[in-house]
């Protein structure tokens, strides 16, 4: 009997749908390059090693639905702590700050920063290295934290997002730096028709000139399946603590974020679960109820593609619901 009660209470609580953007939100952050390999075979001098590093650009995809406002931002470089924020008692550097226009316009204004291989980066990675019990064997991590809020809003309401980057020593020697994954396309189909009526879906924003949109009716269910380009799942080598190496093949995960409606799952892809199931790549979108619509509505669909080595990319598609 207690078990039943436990089951009864286990599912309590009704929260906002994490897959639907309803206010200011960072949907994705991408670094280019996400990872760099540095040759440590000739020298371990930090200055010399830093000369091998190229500038990295980090950009954020932001939505601020339900608000028409400029945003206040600040980029900070640091070795983030357990809460993914910068510890102000450790080395850090503010890379950029200011006001950026409303992100919900087409094309969205770029919100990017660049991490230059300078003294700031040296201080941060040195701090990271000092705190790494493996002395950088698995890579030296550093990150950028984006603080974002309405230009005139209370800073206490600011949101934070963090993107990690990594410097990898060339151990083993043939190690290759990671590349951001890509998406070849998107297919929409009827979940009950086994892909017999599948149709490609354009990867464009709803507000883009000449944007192609997937037409649906209220409560219509559509299966969205990503099309992976060949070679997107890179094979890579990683060192082991006993002096050896392992070779793995990347898994690709897809995060789905929408402007309205519901999704069967907010993430798809990835590795196997404990039962051996390979997670499906698709998710099923269900359009909103007609009663919730005031008229035809464009629903943005954001797809964030990730590998497990800090690589990421984002794409956008559009669904048009007509009551």
């Amino acid at each position, binding site marked *: *009997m*207690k*078990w*039943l*009660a*436990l089951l009864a*209470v*286990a599912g*309590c*609580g*009704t*929260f*906002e749908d*994490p897959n639907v953007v309803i206010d200011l*939100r*960072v949907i*994705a*952050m*991408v670094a280019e390059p996400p990872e760099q390999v540095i040759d440590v075979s000739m020298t371990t001098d930090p200055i010399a090693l830093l000369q091998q590093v190229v500038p990295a650009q980090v950009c*954020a995809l932001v939505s601020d639905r339900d608000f028409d406002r400029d945003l206040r931002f600040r980029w900070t470089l640091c070795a983030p702590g357990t*809460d*993914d*924020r910068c510890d102000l008692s450790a080395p850090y550097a503010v890379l950029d700050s200011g006001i950026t226009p409303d992100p919900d316009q087409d094309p969205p204004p770029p919100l990017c920063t660049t991490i230059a291989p300078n003294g700031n980066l040296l201080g941060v990675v040195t701090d990271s290295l000092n705190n790494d*019990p*493996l*002395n950088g*064997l698995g*890579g030296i991590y550093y990150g950028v*934290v984006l603080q974002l809020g309405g230009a005139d809003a209370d800073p206490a309401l600011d*949101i934070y*997002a*963090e*993107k*990690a980057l990594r410097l990898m020593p060339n151990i083993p020697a043939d190690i290759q730096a990671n590349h951001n994954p890509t998406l070849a396309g998107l297919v929409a189909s009827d979940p009950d028709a086994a892909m017999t009526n599948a149709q490609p879906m354009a990867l464009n924003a709803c507000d883009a000139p000449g944007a192609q949109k997937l037409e649906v009716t209220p409560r219509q269910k559509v299966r969205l399946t990503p099309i992976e380009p060949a070679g997107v799942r890179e094979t890579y080598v*990683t060192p*082991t*603590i*006993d*002096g050896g190496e*392992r070779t*793995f*093949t990347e*898994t690709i*995960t897809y*995060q789905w974020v929408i402007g309205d409606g519901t999704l069967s799952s*907010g*993430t798809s892809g990835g*590795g*196997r679960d*404990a*039962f*051996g*199931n390979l*997670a*499906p790549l698709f998710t099923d979108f269900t359009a909103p109820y007609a009663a919730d619509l005031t008229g035809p509505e464009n629903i943005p669909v954001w797809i*964030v593609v*990730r590998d*497990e080595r*800090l690589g*990421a990319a984002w794409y956008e598609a559009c669904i048009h619901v007509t009551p």
Partner: protein
Amino acid sequence: MLRVVLALCALCAISRADDAPRAPDAPTTTTITNVVTRPPKLIQAQAPEYPPAALAAGKQAKVKVRIHIDASGIVTTVEVIDRAGDGFDEAAVAAAMQYVFEPAEIDGKPAAIVVETTINFVIEPRAPPEESPPPAPPQTHEGPPNHAGSLKAPITLQGVVVERGTRKHLAGVIVSIYREQGSGEQGSGEQGSGDQGAGRGLDVITGEAGDFYFHGVPPGKYTILAVDDRYDRFKRPIEISKKEALEVRLWMRPRGGNPYETVIEGERETMEVTKRTLQRQQLTSIPGTFGDPIRVIQTLPGIQRAPFGLGLLLVRGSNPDDTGIFVDGHEVPSLFHFLGGPSIFNAEMLESLDFYPGGFPGRFGRHHGGVVALETRPTKSDGIHGSAKVDFIDAGGYIRAPLTDDLSVAAAGRRSYIDAFLGFILPAPARGAQRVVTPVYYDYQARVDYNLHDEGHASVFVIGSSDGLHVLDQDPDAAVSTNLDSSVKFLRVIGTYERPMAGDLKLTLSPAWGRDTVSFSGAQAEASGPFTSIGVINDNLSYRMRVKGKLAARVTLDTGLDLLSRITHYQALVPIDDTAVDTAGVDIQPTQVFRGSQMFGMGAYLDLGIDVTDRLKLVPTLRADEYILDGVDRASIDPRFVARYRVDDHWTLKGYVGRFTQPPQPEALDRRFGNPKLELEHGMHYGLGYEWRPDHLWSIDSEIYYVARSNLVIFSDEVTQNSDGTYTYVNFTNEARNYSYGFEAILKREITEHLYGWLSYTYSRAREQRHPDSDWRPTTFDQPHVLNAVASYKPGAGFELGARFQLASGRPETPVIGATYDADTGGYVPVTGAVRSVRDPTFYQLDARVERDWLFDRWTFGVYLDVINVLNTTNVEAYQYDYRYRQRAPITSFPILPTLGVKGTW
């Protein structure tokens, strides 16, 4: 004329002392170590002289007295408990001083004891003149007390007195025969004594087997009367013929109370300071426990409330694993079925349960938290008896039977059937899909006892428990399917041989074998084999030797040796690579892993109880342990010291200090996934308290304590760099430590005919430091205030009403003050405040239980309704957060939860 009648019925309570296995003694302690193995038996009674003035005034009275009986059966002192005045008290004392008893035995040896009884002074109207009575055999006691009349005469009436419902043969019952007034039969004011005439004329006191015999009773119509303080008076007409002896069976109905009124004052040897003992009666009728005997300890001071009613033993701020659970001296891995299920023990198999929150004796080792010690109940050769219980969750039964005069056996078992109706509750699977959810638990116990008489006693006890969960979820239209099997099992076989040694010493030898298994396997429903699996098998072989008893008049010895061999095997099919760097999110194929560890522990202990004076007792203890953990030696020597000082008959002061040692868990020592260099964990216990017992019904036991634990094993993400430049994960270290302190008190009302209960309160604080450079913070289960109130009342007519009220501080929580979006995972990372710096709301809950028993001659039938959370209060156990930690919702404890069950006992 008036007839003076004396009812000795209350004396029969004396014979029930054997049903009070751990009744508390009086003045000096709330804890009793000895067990009454044979009650005192009244073999000679003396009717009191009715005070002439009171008689003339027509006054009647009841005088309750407390009788002190020495080890030879002689009454040494009689105290009047409830005074009646008018000379009744003096008359009662004078009469009781003349009683002669067959002495009680405690732990098989004659011992002093104290009993209480009520002597009734009743005046009855003189019977009208009647014809001359038939000749009755003289009231002589030529033979045993259960024979009346001249032994030379033939037996004309014999019988046995039996308890209704249980068929237990009742010793010590007074049985009388007489002629009823106005029956037309011959009667006599001297011989026939009416309804109150049990003390006069043809009286017998039933023997050990409840049997009685009347010799040479003339033919005719009589009334037979049986009286006992704890039973309704039995009376019925009989007719004795000339031709043959009459044989009768007298069924006596219990008064609805229980037999635990007798106060025992045996030669107790209290070797510990704080032991809380529960008797079987207290173990089965506490509301909210579903009659579960072991859940009751969660109402005692020293134990924190476990969330969701889980069976965790959270003792004085320690982790659940730090508290040892011993059955007949051997350790078992758990007491409860999983997910808040019931305990693994049938109440009928349980003799007693001792809970030591700290400062426990030397015979318990390898733990630095607390100890729960269960003693199983010896079987009896008193016929076939049993019980059965059925409710919505499970059904179980118990049966015991004699095989020969010296050999008896008992067995019990239980199985859940929640799986049978779970399918009606869970959502139906889609068409063509299949869903099976089968949670099943069962347990079983068996015990065989063999009486070797002068050579001692031998027994074998078997206990097993199993919890299993099978989930099959398969939908052809779904991309994933599930086939999950998990189980937790254990089995113990415990042999015990006890025999007397020279002097007062007793030797106990006890070997045991056991196996604990934990398994999990996960697969796709269509797969032929598991994709992942884990199997852990623990084989345990243990042996205990114990010598206990009086070394000298003022010295008691408890010494022994215990050995434990544990071999642990791990078999796992898991997707791990423990050498690759940073494998988060990497799809690793499962690989087979076979691991194992071995532990051999040898422990020797010595407890010496020294009565320095009549008031002061000191108990120095030394326990030495040697461990061979995967071939590496570790040793510990734990000195402990206990002192008790009896201020007067009501107050006792007590204190203790001691060191306790615990080896790391086997998996933490694994050379690959653990750390074979781990050292032993230690705990220092300090306690100071008092006991106050104003009378034999009420007591207060209070204590302040401080526990400091060090060298605690904790997970570590550190690595060490080897000389060749490679690295080794540390996995576990001994860096953690914690401390707890607090105050505990229990106000207890002992079991009487209608009422028992207790009020317990614990104030405690527990803090931990996980690493030397980290901050001290509250432990996971730190609960400053825990209060439990338990009461059970028998109003009569077979009803028993019970209630339990719990109040406890909420668990500490770490506040979430924000979140950061992790762009590399797509999730949010909480930003937290000070660790465990806020608390969940205070927990409070009222449980109630109503039970009604119907008594039949050969069995008892009962129906009970156990309601958890009668007030349907919403208690927060934890919180869950939304995806970005802006909203939270409470996860609450049980809503109102009634359970209806039936049970039968025969």
